[in-house]
C-alpha cells in the first residue's frame, strides 16, 4: 500500500517550474527521506500533499484520496519556516493542539514536552529557535496520524535540539500505523532514520530506493548525495 502517490505532477509559479512532471510513490509504514538542493521543489511537494497548493496538472493521492482538509485529519504537517503563536505558553499550545486536532494524544504530548526539555509555563515568544522547533514537532508527533510530513525540521536548529527531535521521532514512530516523510539538509545526522530515500532536483526525482540497499551498493546516503549534486 502506498501512502502517497504522484503521477506527472506539474506546478508552476509564473514561469518558474517548481514540480516538473513529478512521479513518485511512497510506501506506508516507513520513514522516507526527501533530499535535494534548495529549489529542488521539496517544499512545494509537501504543500501539494496537504492542499496548501494545487498543481497545474497531474494526479496526487494521499492515503488513497485527493488532498483536502478531510484527508488532513490523518496528516500532521510541519512546514518549513513556520512559527507558532507567540502569545501562547507551551501548555496553552498543547491545549490548543488538543482542541483543534482530532486524535491528539494529550499523554504523549506531555511526555514529549518533558523528554524534549520544554517548560510548560514558558511563553512561546521567549523560547529559542531550537525550542520553538521542538514545540512544533511535539504538536505533530502527539497526533496519532497515519502520515507525518516534516519539511526541514532541523533547519537552523542547534545540535542538541536536533538530537532531541530525532529521539522524539524514533520514540513515537509506530511502524504498523505510520508513514513519515522528512526533507532535510542534515543528511549525516538524519540518514540513519530513513528506510527509503528520494533524491529530487529541479522538480524531478533523479534517484530513489531503499536505503540499506543503496548503502550496500554505493555507500552512505551522504556520499551518494555528494556524488549526485556536486
Amino acid at each position, binding site marked *: 500500500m502506498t501512502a502517497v502517490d504522484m503521477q506527472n505532477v506539474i506546478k508552476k509559479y509564473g514561469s518558474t517550474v517548481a514540480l516538473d512532471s513529478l512521479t513518485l510513490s511512497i510506501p506506508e509504514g516507513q520513514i522516507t527521506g526527501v533530499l535535494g538542493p534548495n529549489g529542488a521543489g521539496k517544499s512545494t511537494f509537501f*504543500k501539494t500533499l*496537504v*492542499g*496548501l*497548493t*494545487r498543481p497545474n496538472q497531474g494526479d496526487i493521492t494521499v492515503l488513497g484520496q485527493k488532498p483536502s*482538509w*478531510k484527508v*488532513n*485529519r490523518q*496528516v500532521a*504537517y510541519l*512546514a518549513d*519556516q*513556520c*512559527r*507558532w*503563536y*507567540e*502569545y501562547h505558553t507551551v501548555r496553552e499550545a498543547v*491545549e*490548543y493542539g488538543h*482542541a*483543534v*486536532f*482530532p486524535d491528539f494524544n494529550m499523554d504523549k504530548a506531555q511526555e514529549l514536552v518533558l523528554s524534549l526539555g520544554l517548560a510548560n509555563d514558558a511563553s512561546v*515568544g521567549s523560547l529559542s529557535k531550537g525550542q520553538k522547533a521542538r514545540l512544533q514537532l511535539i504538536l505533530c508527533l502527539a497526533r496519532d496520524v497515519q502520515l507525518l510530513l516534516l519539511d526541514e525540521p532541523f533547519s537552523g536548529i542547534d545540535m542538541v535540539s536536533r538530537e532531541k527531535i530525532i529521539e522524539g521521532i524514533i520514540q513515537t514512530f509506530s511502524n504498523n500505523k505510520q508513514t513519515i516523510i522528512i526533507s532535510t539538509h542534515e543528511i549525516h545526522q538524519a540518514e540513519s532514520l530513513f528506510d527509503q530515500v528520494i533524491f529530487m532536483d529541479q522538480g524531478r526525482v533523479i534517484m530513489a530506493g531503499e536505503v540499506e540497499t543503496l548503502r550496500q551498493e554505493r555507500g552512505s546516503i551522504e556520499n551518494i548525495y555528494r556524488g549526485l549534486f556536486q
Partner: protein
Amino acid sequence: MTRFWALIDNSGKFNKDHNYTANLRWQLFNTLLVLLTSVGFSYSLGPFSLLAFVPVFLLFAAFISASSQISREWREQTISWWLTVPCSRSELLASKLLGALIRLTKIAGISIVATALIALGWILVKPDIWTMPAISVAALMASKLYILTIIVLPLAMALGMFFAVLMRSRFKFFAPFIIAFVGAAFGAGANYLLPILGKTEVDTQLTLISQIPVFNLSLTAIVLRVGLMLVIAAVILALSSYLLAEQTEV
C-alpha cells in the same frame, strides 16, 4: 474545549499581543474618539453632530479587525498551521469573525464607556448648553446611531474578512474593482437602511440639531433589515470560504 471555540478563543486573544502594531491603531482610534467627544460636548450643540462619526469609526474598526484577524496568520507565518486544521474553510473563517467580534466588543466597550464618561464630564461642566431636553435628545440620537452601527456590524466584518482573503487569493488584482463595486452596493444599501433613521419634527429651541433620527419603521421592518444584513454576511462568508479553499495558495 471544542475545536470551534478553541479557534475563536485563539483569535480573541488581545491583551497578550504586545508586539502587535494594531494596538497602535486602536490607541489612535481611542484618542480620536476622546477628542471628538470633547469637541462635540464642549462648545455648542453644533459640533455635537460630529459624534455621528463615532459609530462610523466603529464600523471601520470592525472591518479592520476582521481583516487583520485573517491577514495576521500570513504575516506571523502561522498560516500553514491555520490552514491545515482539519475543518471546513467556513468553520475557520466563521471562527475568525467571532474572534474579531470578541476583540471588537472589548475595544468598543472600553471606547463607548470612555466616551460616555467624558460626555458626562462635559455635561456637568456646561449646564448652560446641556439642559434636560438637550441631554435627552442627544442620548436618543446617540443610541439610535449605535443601534444602526450594530445592525451593520456583521456586514462590515464580513466584508473585512472577504477583503483579507481576496488580497491573498489569485484575484487580488481585481481588488480595487471589487471594492468599488462593494462601495456602490453599500451606498445603495444605505438608502435601504436609512429609513430606520428617518426624520422628524424639530423642537424649535434646538434648531441646530436639525435632523433628529426617529425610528419610523415598524418592528417587523427593522427585523427584516437586520435579517437581510445577516443573510448578506452569510453569503459573503460562503464566497470567502470558496476563495480560501480553491483560489488561495501558501
